[in-house]
């Protein structure tokens, strides 16, 4: 219990530091949201609009940085992220809520799948070292993991979307559909997710395979594994309960980290596939000097990563009793 409390205290300290950084960073960036807004219009807006927008957005306001900081902390605590500047007057919360579901679905699910498959392949590969699976899978996926995923996405779009017309390659569902819990709509969403999910999956799975396989090999050489074999336990039991349980720890920490980063979206994949998600909004917010949106998104990512690390620390402590004293 003391371990958990200590972790929790550390978590709060990091959170405060992250919040403060998050407040400072957008303000150190160059740019003026009113200018960005005018420039977005390819025609038709008179120069007088600049001043109007500056007033509207509160650019060069009289509030001091200190008072801005405290009202920021208050807003964060109450979950009020204000109004987006680039999509004025839409609220930041509204924009994020619209996007987050899609990101969680696409990036979250692929992260989980990549972890599960990658770890399994790593376990089995190390167990049957030099076997068919071990000599094919790791090299192939290590190669795909260094392929830039946006490039792979473009290639897949060209082959399966543009040339073969097998799969849709833009949007998260057919744009003419009305979202709803109908079978046809869900089927539509799944189809639209295939190409981006596949892109993410085969470019991230390699890392899991490699780390899992390598730790597994070291673990398999340990005395207690030999002992288990001598006792005549089943292969499956030794593989999963003795070796994999101990070998999985580094992978688990990595998994927690990447789960945290899910909320950041996969910017380039969302960009290439025109997929409505958090990552795209992050990019748009930076391009348009949309501080409130940027802050909320950064905050979301930071908190998600911190929470994920906290949970993985706790999970590690449960799996490996030795870490409880060390922590």
């Amino acid at each position, binding site marked *: 219990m003391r371990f958990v409390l200590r972790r929790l205290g550390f978590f709060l300290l990091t959170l405060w530091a992250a919040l403060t950084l998050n407040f400072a960073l957008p303000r150190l*960036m*160059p*740019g*003026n949201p009113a*200018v*960005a*807004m005018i*420039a*977005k*219009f*390819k*025609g*038709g*807006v*008179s*120069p*007088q*609009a*600049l*001043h*109007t*927008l*500056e*007033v*509207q957005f509160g650019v060069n306001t009289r509030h001091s940085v200190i008072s801005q900081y405290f009202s920021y902390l208050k807003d964060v605590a109450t979950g009020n992220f204000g*109004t987006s500047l*680039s*999509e*004025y*007057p*839409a609220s930041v919360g*509204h*924009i994020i809520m*619209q*996007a987050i579901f899609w990101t969680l679905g696409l990036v979250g699910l692929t992260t989980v799948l990549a972890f599960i498959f990658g770890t399994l392949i790593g376990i089995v590969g190390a167990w049957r070292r030099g076997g068919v699976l071990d000599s094919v899978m790791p090299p192939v996926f290590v190669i795909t993991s260094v392929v830039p995923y946006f490039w792979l996405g473009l290639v897949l779009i060209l082959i399966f979307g*543009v040339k*073969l*017309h*097998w799969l*849709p*390659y*833009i*949007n998260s569902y*057919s*744009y*003419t559909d*009305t979202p709803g819990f109908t079978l*046809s709509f869900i089927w*539509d969403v799944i*189809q639209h997710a295939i190409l981006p999910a596949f892109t993410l999956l085969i470019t991230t799975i390699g890392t899991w395979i490699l780390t899992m396989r390598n730790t597994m090999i070291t673990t398999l050489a340990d005395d207690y594994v030999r002992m288990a074999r001598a006792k005549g336990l089943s292969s499956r039991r030794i593989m999963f309960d003795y070796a994999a349980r101990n070998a999985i720890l580094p992978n688990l920490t990595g998994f927690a980290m990447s789960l945290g980063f899910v909320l950041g979206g996969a910017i380039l994949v969302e*960009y290439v*596939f*025109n997929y*409505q998600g958090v990552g*795209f*909004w992050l990019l*748009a917010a*930076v*391009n348009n*000097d949309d501080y409130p949106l940027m802050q909320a998104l950064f905050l979301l990512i930071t908190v998600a990563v911190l929470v994920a690390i906290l949970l993985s620390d706790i999970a590690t402590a449960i799996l490996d009793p030795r870490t409880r004293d060390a922590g």
Partner: protein
Amino acid sequence: MRRLIKYGVVLASCGVLAAACSSSSSSSGGKGTSTASGVLTIDNESGGNWTCDFNPFNLSDISFSLGNVYEPLVFVDTLNDAKTTPWLATSYAWSNGNKTLTFTIRNGVKFTNGDPLTAADVVYTFNLLRQNKTLDINAVWSVLSSVSQQGSDQVVMQFKAPAVTYFYYIADQIGIVDSKVWSKISDPVKYPDTNPIGTGPYEVSSTTCTPQNIKYTANPNYWVKGEPKVGTVNYPAFLTNDTANTFLSAGNAQWGSQFIPDISTFLKAQPAIKWWFPPVANVSMFINLKNPLLSNVAVRQAMAYAIDRQKAASIGEFGEEPASNQTGIVTPTFSSWLDSSQAAQFGNNYAYNPKKAISILKNAGFTMGSNGIFAKNGQPLSFTIINNGGFSDWVNAVNVIVADLKAVGIQVTPQDLSQTTYQDKLYAGQFQLGYGSETGGPSPYFELRQWLYSANSAPIGTPAGSNFERYASTATDKLINEYPATTNPATQQQIVDQLEKVMLADVPVIPVTESVDWFQYDTASFSGWPTPGDPYAQPAAYNYPDWGQVMLHLTPAK
């Protein structure tokens, strides 16, 4: 239209004939009235998902509701000598030395909730902008002094000074709203207007708009009998230019508003899609006049001679944007305004002439150093040019400029900046040379005013409205102020001639290429598109309220 895997091929080929194919969509959207049919799909990169807000006084939303949902008083055709077409006003008249403008409001127009449109609604709309300055996007109340009703159907606007040039902003850029609806809104500035009540040919609501698509459906009770003829307009959200271009080339959309590099190759598979890029303004090199070397007019004139505008247009813009000329008059759109004989006196309108550039610099006392760069008093002609690094066409055009200037002994180093940094520096005047464009208007006067009016300038470090190069001349300001006082075409022409002379003699800005409206249109599924022969409106889907006019002109193919 669901895209099942096995039907993918069929549906993709269907896109070209969307009108014939998409019966499912039109039956749900057409409200079962009149003759409106077919589905028109727009292809325009929006850079984000839709928020489904339609407040016509909000800069983020106006281009999705003005023209098709909300309508203005009079349509002004930028591409056809500012020709006016009555819209919600049947007529208008200037009086009192162009300080009073009277509109007669159309009878028999109804909002989509059934309320009739009255002169009181027009008065209410303008006073709404007066009370909420942030809604007054084009600052019309900087010149207006009052708006009131006269009789049953007239609206009288009084101006502080003659204001002919403001007609475009007042009559064409402001959508009229229902006073009974808007008077109940507590904060119109933050009002998202997700279910807009307008008078226009199309309706939209929170149920027909999703983050990925805005679906406009024909207004069955539109005040023009038999209009609109197109039943549904889909406006999908595209986050990037590439996805939108692919969508168009796959035949999924009929109305494109996209920059497509090497367009004839790209759209080879869609022979029915034509394109037209009418020029509307300039992409120019802004010269910081507060820089001691650049404030020397000889240096600026030499630069204007040294730049091969044709080459910049063909290499940077694939020839899709034509070359500009030094007067700043956009041709052929505003050709009648160009004073060719005057321009001819300035080296044939600063036609490309590197030898002349070198001789100007020599005559001005510059000598070429051993490094091939001209210098005077130990100060070399060496500058940086800021550019939006995100626009690959501009980056290419600036590379042409850099090479051209290098050839006459002027060293220029490009700085391709991120969009935000670039805009910040350009507006604040923190640059030596800058490449950029402005918006223009229904006559060349608007862009010349943006460039040359000292009131649009600001001290270095403060964002300027549009006079980025910081030009200031009392004589020029006087000319600019005289123009709004006259409706006489001859006087207007005379003033613009003199402004052209400022451009030619002082060279405060060097127009390089012309910026255009991007427009691709599918002739197989719809007829009635604007064309060079019939330029009845600016053709891009992002041109408001013009896109409403285009929608009213379109007829689905049988």
